[in-house]
């Protein structure tokens, strides 16, 4: 008993200390943005790049580029100017949600790398939380003077923009298409150069593929385990095909006709006809499994972004490499529900996202961090990176020559980006996205589309509350 009271006293003492510390420790609002000129003339500088890539693992080619090109070249360039720069690279190879948590913790606590890669869709949320600040607040006028801005199309810049302020520089953009296996199509009597013009034609092709033994005809991401992949590679491109967007004219889209049509289509894919494998959408590792199935010739069609081409089935370092990728993998634009029914009356639609890099508002070396940012986004840097794996860069001047050798990426740049749409850069979006994932999960497991749409609508009402309006 005496021990207990002594412990109690100690605990009370600590509690008081903790509360005092709590009060002090949170003066830092996680991103006040210091003085842009801080340490501008320093001759000894240390900078850290944080990215969700790791040599030999996730996005390996990006990690190799940072390690083998960016760091030595930038260090040498600075040495010529008499500045001794040490650039450290903090690698990560985790799923995007875990990475998001990690950097949010870093930024919230006033730590973290100086240059941090983020998914463009987190920009609004992080900006509202005060984790990141506009580039001009961090690095001052030098940001406005960068000539690279002229090379990045407005739509691509939007990925890293919130409330008309640029928070970062986009690293690239992407587009979504239907990838299909030409061998399986030939076996099913389908054309080698296939381009559906309506959802019905996708289902007709799925019906033909269904006759093949051991082949899942079509996989469209659904459900919560797939996370944002469900929304970006499934729900939103289909919604664009009904002529609607999830957020338009300052209004969220509730249980509209378009939302219901999309959910009905999910019901057709995963319902009685079973063109897709609904179990795969519930498995924790379902998306990776679908990649393996496609690479193994057991999956006919898959809606994915060009990431799939570059980093998944790439015979050279992909996570599910296909030695004969260039012959076997075909791609087609995602059709509207029927011709002319898509956004802006389009026949074909797509969705694009993008990642980018921000400067940590807590950096001790804002000027040098900005120099490193410019360096990483220079034409030379992109060319060095493209030597590894071609990808669509944000820069027109680089894309003009870089994609010539890759028909798939040229297709995205020339055919898909002009018709694509983007997600709303709003803090609420990630929550709405989860509500959409839940609706697709419900339909994939047998709930009628109308019920799932109604459940989504009430979920949305809870989320939006009194802060916005909902169209239904």
């Amino acid at each position, binding site marked *: 008993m005496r021990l207990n009271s002594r412990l109690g006293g100690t*605990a009370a003492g600590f509690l008081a200390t903790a509360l005092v510390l709590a009060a002090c420790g949170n003066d830092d609002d996680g991103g006040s943005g210091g003085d842009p000129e801080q340490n501008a003339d320093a001759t000894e500088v240390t900078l850290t790049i944080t990215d969700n890539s790791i040599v030999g693992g996730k996005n390996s080619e990006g990690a190799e580029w940072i390690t083998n090109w960016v760091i030595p070249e930038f260090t040498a360039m600075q040495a010529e100017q008499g500045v001794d720069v040490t650039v450290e690279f903090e690698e990560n190879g985790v799923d995007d949600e875990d990475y998001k948590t990690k950097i949010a913790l870093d930024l919230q606590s006033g730590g973290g790398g100086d240059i941090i890669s983020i998914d463009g869709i987190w920009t609004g949320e992080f900006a509202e*939380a005060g984790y990141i600040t506009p580039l001009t607040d961090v690095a001052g006028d030098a940001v406005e003077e960068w000539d690279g801005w002229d090379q990045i199309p407005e739509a691509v810049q939007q990925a890293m923009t919130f409330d008309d302020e640029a928070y970062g520089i986009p690293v690239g953009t992407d587009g979504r298409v239907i990838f299909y296996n030409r061998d399986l199509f030939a076996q099913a009597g389908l054309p080698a150069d296939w381009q559906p013009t309506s959802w019905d034609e996708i289902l007709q092709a799925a019906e033909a593929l269904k006759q093949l033994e051991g082949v899942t005809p079509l996989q469209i991401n659904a459900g919560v385990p797939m996370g944002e992949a469900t929304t970006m590679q499934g729900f939103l491109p289909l919604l664009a095909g009904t002529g609607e967007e999830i957020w338009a004219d300052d209004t969220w889209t509730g249980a509209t006709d378009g939302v219901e049509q999309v959910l009905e289509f999910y019901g057709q894919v995963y319902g009685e006809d079973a063109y897709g494998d609904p179990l795969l959408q519930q498995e924790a590792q379902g998306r990776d499994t679908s990649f393996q199935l496609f690479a193994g010739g057991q999956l006919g069609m898959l809606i994915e972004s060009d990431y799939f081409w570059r980093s998944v089935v790439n015979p050279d370092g992909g996570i599910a490499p296909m030695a004969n990728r260039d012959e076997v993998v075909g791609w087609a634009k995602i059709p509207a529900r029927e011709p002319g029914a898509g956004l802006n009356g389009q026949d074909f639609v797509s969705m694009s996202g993008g990642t980018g890099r921000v400067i940590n508002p807590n950096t001790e070396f804002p000027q040098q961090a900005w120099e490193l940012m410019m360096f990483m986004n220079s034409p030379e840097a992109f060319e060095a990176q493209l030597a590894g794996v071609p990808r669509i860069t944000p820069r027109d001047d680089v894309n003009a020559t870089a994609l010539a050798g890759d028909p798939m990426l040229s297709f995205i740049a020339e055919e898909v980006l002009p018709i694509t749409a983007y997600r709303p850069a709003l803090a609420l979006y990630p929550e709405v996205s989860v509500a959409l994932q839940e609706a697709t999960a419900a339909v994939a497991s047998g709930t009628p589309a109308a019920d799932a749409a109604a459940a989504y609508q009430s979920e949305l009402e809870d989320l939006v509350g009194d802060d916005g309006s909902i169209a239904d």
Partner: protein
Amino acid sequence: MLVIAIFLLFPAIWTLYLGLTNWRLTGLAAREPEFVGLENYTDALTDPDFRNSLVLTLAFVFFSAIVGQSILGFALAWTARKLRPALRSVVETVVLLAWIIPASVVAFLWLALLDRREGTLNALLGTDGTAWLLEYPMQSIIVFNIWNGTAFSMLLFSSALASVPPSQFETARMAGAGTFATLRDVVLPNIRGHILTNTLLITLWTFNVFAPYLITAGGPQGRTEILGVYIYRVALRDGALGQGAALSLIMIIINLVVASVYLRLLRERRS
């Protein structure tokens, strides 16, 4: 004392404080901690997800630890003690391996075993295409946990059985007692304390287990979202750190209650 203060008391008190705030890391309204009193606790108690997780955890602890691990651990210890010493150490080593291999590695082994398409289990049973992790998710992680933790109980019971005076076994044998009677009249009275100790330790251990996340990620549809996994989701996936801290404390309180019940039973036995 200082070490305990830095690494134990301070984090605990910090958690206590955070549990009284609405601090969010990501998601809507990520913000600085604001004091909200007991709101997180009242939210938790009215949250169906939390209740679901609590029920799942109780079932998980009961079936995998109290029933599965204890009985299997005892059966193995009972069988092994009759083996020749050389053979016995082989058996003990094999069982121990399951415990020595990190749980995360074991989780991936089980993923491969239970895989729907190329899983070893379907190949062995001829149950082609059975999605064990989707159709029997809770059973799957219970079996995984039994496999992973049985060695501990086995070792504990091995030393318990070794402490039973051989003369008592001999007396039972002379009286013509069968196995069941021997267990009831000779073994049980001698190892009651060991049984309690085993149950206490594995209950606490299983309550706090996280490795099943690597197998099912709490799915499908939250059917394997035991407390550790649920708190991880709330705090680090949904970014509700204040809520997560409050849930952690609820978990600690449950652990303390469980531990004090067992300790009381142990004390009563001793006196």
